[in-house]
């Protein structure tokens, strides 16, 4: 392998990219926009969930209860209804996401410490709002009960503000407040850096479509040089995103960055090498761009979303999927990005993942180079 020839291929590819500034702009923009959109979705605080209330009790206690439920930004009282059928109609039209029905004898039962005569109805079609309403109602209810029964509780040495007689102390490491954005957004970086891999697959397929690959083959450039030379410019483009995306994550979404930036940059380059090698395999086997697109979705994007542990924990997967996830560069890189962003760990912890990434990259590009030869014959 000659570095000079590799560089020649890379320069040709760079010229090609530079000639088409719109595509170059989109190649850089696409990962950024996708990251921004998904990050925004993660950071939306669920609040202002519209609910309806049906109060059969009409006692001062029940009124105080309803007042407490709808105080604050979490739940918005859409309507105070008179009959059950109205709740039905509102849920059907999607006007409300939950409803609270206060049963008759609410105050009486509660004050006698017999039961909690309350029914909560949630819309089972939209999980997030419904679950949020339920959590909020449960929490406020507990608060309400302990306030109503405050004196009895205090006499027993229980804290007035809570009915909990078992104190659960929560300590969250690396991410105070357990904000999902703080680890999901660094994880998403491994997803959106799949875009340059797709570009490589497309350019290789494109050369075949246009019949220019034969010209390249006729030159004294070797297959490894060709594969790596094709990858190099897109690794560079990917590195622009590696600079841009953490900047957005930190500036716009206030994600803490505890680790070493240089290390992050270097490991990102290794990741790009690994994921782009996957892209070249696709480009080697597939001869048209639509097909390369389709396969990239199946092989690069969907697994990156579902099998790399960004949203779905790897430890909870069945054995077969866990093995598959180990073969994906994104799995190792997601651990690296979160490790560098949050606990701020260095190579002493991350080296096995870096080694895995490099190994996968070498393996994938070797496969690409090998089959590239056969495809020519």
């Amino acid at each position: 392998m000659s570095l000079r020839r590799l560089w020649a291929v890379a320069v040709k590819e760079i010229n090609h990219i530079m000639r088409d500034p719109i595509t170059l702009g989109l190649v850089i923009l696409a990962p950024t926009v996708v990251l921004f959109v998904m990050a925004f979705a993660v950071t939306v605080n669920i609040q202002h969930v519209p609910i309806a209330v049906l109060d059969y009790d009409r006692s001062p206690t029940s009124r105080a209860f309803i007042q407490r439920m709808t105080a604050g930004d979490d739940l918005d009282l859409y309507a105070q209804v008179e009959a059950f059928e109205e709740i039905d109609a509102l849920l059907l039209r999607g006007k409300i996401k939950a409803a609270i029905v206060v049963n008759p004898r609410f105050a009486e039962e509660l004050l006698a410490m017999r039961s909690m005569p309350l029914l909560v109805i949630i819309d089972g079609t939209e999980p997030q709002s419904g679950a949020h309403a339920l959590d909020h109602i449960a929490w406020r209810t507990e608060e309400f009960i302990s306030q109503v029964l405050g004196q009895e509780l205090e006499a027993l040495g229980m804290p007035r503000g809570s009915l909990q007689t078992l104190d659960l102390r929560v300590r969250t490491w690396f991410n105070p407040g357990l904000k999902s954005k703080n680890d999901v957004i660094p994880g998403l970086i491994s997803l959106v850096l799949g875009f340059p891999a797709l570009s490589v697959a497309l350019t290789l397929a494109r050369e075949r479509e246009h019949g220019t690959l034969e010209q390249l083959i006729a030159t004294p450039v070797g297959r490894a040089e060709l594969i790596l030379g094709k990858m190099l410019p897109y690794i560079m483009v990917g590195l622009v995103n590696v600079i841009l995306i953490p900047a957005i994550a930190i500036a716009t979404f206030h994600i803490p960055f505890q680790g070493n930036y240089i290390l992050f940059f270097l490991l990102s380059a290794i990741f790009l090498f690994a994921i782009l090698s996957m892209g070249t395999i696709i480009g080697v086997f597939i001869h048209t761009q639509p097909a390369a697109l389709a396969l990239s979705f199946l092989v690069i994007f969907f697994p990156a979303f579902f099998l790399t542990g960004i949203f779905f924990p790897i430890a909870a997967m069945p054995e077969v999927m866990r093995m598959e996830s180990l073969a994906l560069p994104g799995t190792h890189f997601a651990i690296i990005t979160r490790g560098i962003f949050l606990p701020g760990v260095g190579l002493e912890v991350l080296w096995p993942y870096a080694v895995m990434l490099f190994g996968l990259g070498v393996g994938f590009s070797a496969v690409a180079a090998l089959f590239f030869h056969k495809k020519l014959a």
Partner: protein
Amino acid sequence: MIRRIWALAVKEFYHLRYDWWLPAFMLFGGVLELILVGWATSRPMTNLPLMILDDDRSAASRQVITMLENTGTFSLEALVPDEEPIREAMERGEIYAAVIIPPDFSEKMASTNQIPNLAVLLNGAESIPATAALRAVEGLAREMGQEIAVERLGIDAEEFAGFEFSVRTWFNESLSEAYYTTPAELALMLEFTVLLFAALSFSRERELGTLEQLLVMPLTSLEIIIGKSIPVVMIGFIDFSLMLTMVHFVFGVPIRGSLPLLLLLAFGYLLVELAKGMAISVFSRSQHQAFLLVMILGFVDFMFTGYAAPVESMPKFLQGVAQFIPAQHWLAILRGIMLKGADLQVLWPNLLALLLLGLAIGTFSLRYVRRALS
């Protein structure tokens, strides 16, 4: 005219036979992905590895450990002697949570006025499974806490029905996760496949240099557009039917409303996305560009569908923007018909919005594409 359109459509199908990957992807890739996505998103989290640090080593603490194992959420990774192994495992991302039982736990449990405590350590770098773990431990703590409270308050356990209120989940009584996720994923899959397929139609011909040939043929621009659209619409619609069948039979999601109405509206929605895709396809100079534009626009739509985050929680301005996103109305219609059994009386506002948006997008797209072709 119909004969000429037909001739063009037949030519398109010939291409598809040569380029069989794309329709194959649209038909089976969509279904396959939906199985994968549905399978991954429709299960509760189980088997989360948990480390326990038991400083009490009593009958009471062992009972806590058994109860934790019985929640079904955890698999016990290790009983550790101190916090060090917990920290190391969390830094490596191997565990998401750990529970510490303090030395005085059994003592406080047995007393009449002291509050026993448990500590839970969460891995903040894996917030999603950590939150699931926290929920499970909280549920356990509430259960134990209430038992203690009932005992200490001297409430007659026979008469006491508990302070838990009753919950009913409408439209999804069995609390199936598949009900939440798969209809939304079906809706989005239809959008992305149609958009992508349509966006490649002209950009591909242009890149390969065959667009000129098409233009010199004795076809009007309208005929070209219709001829190009037929394969997209047909394959998109078959794809939707296949995915719907699968969502219904594999994931057990009901179709409570009218099936013909659902198919009709799916067809209408497909035309709206087709119009968008066609506009992208004449705007793009290459397939690469077309694809990237589809991704950018598709993901912006995705943000506003209410699947990733509820629209009513967004800032007012974005809630307004969401009203102009066809996919958002389509998802409301799809969920309405499938899960709620809604009919036109209920769905007309979404339908009207979709219709108006469709007309606006369709008119713009048609004029834009015709101008670009001539």
